[in-house]
């Protein structure tokens, strides 16, 4: 597994916890040098410490990926430190509350769309030129099964549909230039975000009642999509949900 990403450089946003941290660790364990961006810098530093402790290389950084300058800076800092960018996992996101609650709260809508949708868009905007310079790359954008169905808080569901749409549009545009762009669609995953979103509910909200994945279950799928084994896969929203959508 170590050989999979040797000499590769991966940028992971939202790398301070949950799926982002698990994926940053997995990339590092597979040989990549990793940039760990998070709005919680202490959490990103913790991820970096975990990686360094296991003999890997990781650059932690603060980034609010809904801000264009900071999204650009996350790419620039990565390239300054490691000389290139081969892989990006645009993972940072927020849940936007519970389904049915504050569905038409404008502030909430703007905030969820700014982070979950525009944050991914900004990520690709600055990552793609760097990958073109390096001769190609692979991007995975964090969607959700809420990007394929009507479950989840309204703004969250809208933002995840947007992520899948922009993933496909960008995939079509850059497939001929050796950049593959895919999305990942987890069901319920055992993360701090999921715990916060479901805390205090008598019964779990719709769409969160299936089996609970571990963050590592999602990380392996992200690594696959970024690996040479997936070289002919692009524009695909890969569902990792324990079979919820199938039934």
């Amino acid at each position, binding site marked *: 597994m170590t050989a999979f990403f040797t000499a590769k450089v991966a940028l992971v946003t939202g790398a301070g916890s949950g799926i982002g941290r698990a994926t940053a660790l997995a990339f590092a364990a597979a040989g990549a040098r990793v940039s760990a961006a998070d709005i919680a810098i202490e959490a990103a530093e913790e991820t970096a410490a975990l990686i360094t402790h296991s003999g890997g290389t990781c650059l932690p950084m603060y980034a609010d990926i809904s801000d264009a300058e900071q999204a650009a800076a996350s790419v620039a800092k990565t390239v300054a430190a490691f000389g290139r960018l081969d892989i990006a996992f645009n993972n940072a996101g927020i849940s936007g509350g519970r389904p049915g609650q504050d569905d038409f709260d404008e502030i909430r809508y703007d905030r969820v769309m700014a982070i979950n949708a525009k944050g991914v868009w900004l990520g690709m905007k600055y990552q793609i030129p760097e990958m073109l310079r390096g001769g190609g790359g692979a991007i995975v954008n964090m969607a959700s099964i809420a990007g394929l169905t009507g479950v989840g808080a309204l703004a969250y569901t809208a933002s995840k549909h947007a992520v899948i749409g922009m993933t496909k549009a960008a995939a079509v545009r850059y497939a*001929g230039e050796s950049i593959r762009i895919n999305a990942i669609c987890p069901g319920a995953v055992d993360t701090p975000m999921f715990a916060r979103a479901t805390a205090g509910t008598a019964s779990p909200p719709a769409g969160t009642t299936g089996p609970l994945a571990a963050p590592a279950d999602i990380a392996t*799928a992200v690594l696959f999509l970024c690996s040479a*084994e997936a070289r002919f896969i*692009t*524009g*695909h929203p*890969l*569902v990792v*949900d324990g079979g919820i959508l*199938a039934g």
Partner: protein
Amino acid sequence: MFNLAGRVAIVTGGNRGIGLAIAEGLAKAGAAIVIAARDKAAGQEAAASLGASAMFIETDVTNPESCYAMVRGTEDRFGRLDILVNNAGIMRFGRAEETALADWQAVLDINLTGAFLCAQAAYPAMRRQKAGKIINISSLAAIFGTAAGAAYASSKGGLVQLTRSLAVSWGPDNIQVNAILPGYIESDLTRRAEVERPGAFDAKRARTPACRIGLPEDIAGAAIFLASDASSFITGTSLTVDGGYAIQL
């Protein structure tokens, strides 16, 4: 990450094309391989090319007895069965109004019923082991209509629904069932079709965002992933491996 050491895989139609590339990929990842196919000479040759941990079992996937014998033969030789790749398939062209019932039936029998029968035969072993991976090789024809291939498209669409149903049904047994939808792949099947109806390669290449036709080896990586523990939370899904063809008009 994608280590299959100690695992045993059956690949139906594994004697050529996508099936052989998958068999080679799984073998390289460490799995022992059973090539299950009708063509004895090609099957034995394919198994021999994979080395000592591979064997050929002559199999007719449309015959339930033959499918059970395939699984028995696998367990007799390797002691277990972890992975079943339902890849055997045929293509027959013809406009719907001119398609003979025998042609329709032959395509459905091999492509769809064959996968069902092999899965049925594999289930007892996988349930006993409390683990299993079934990978159905469907097609983009499961998503798009095909003017000259209603039977093929119907069989491949059926395979996606079979995938979902088996995933739901056998999930509690820790058996993951997924489909791979290859785009247009340069294989024996499509090279023969190109002779019968020239122009498909150019047309498909022009429509593929990645600007190329797929190769059988392109499919192997997805099969390795879906056969490995790395995909243990993925079931009932359809993975397109098509250079972006499905998202382009």
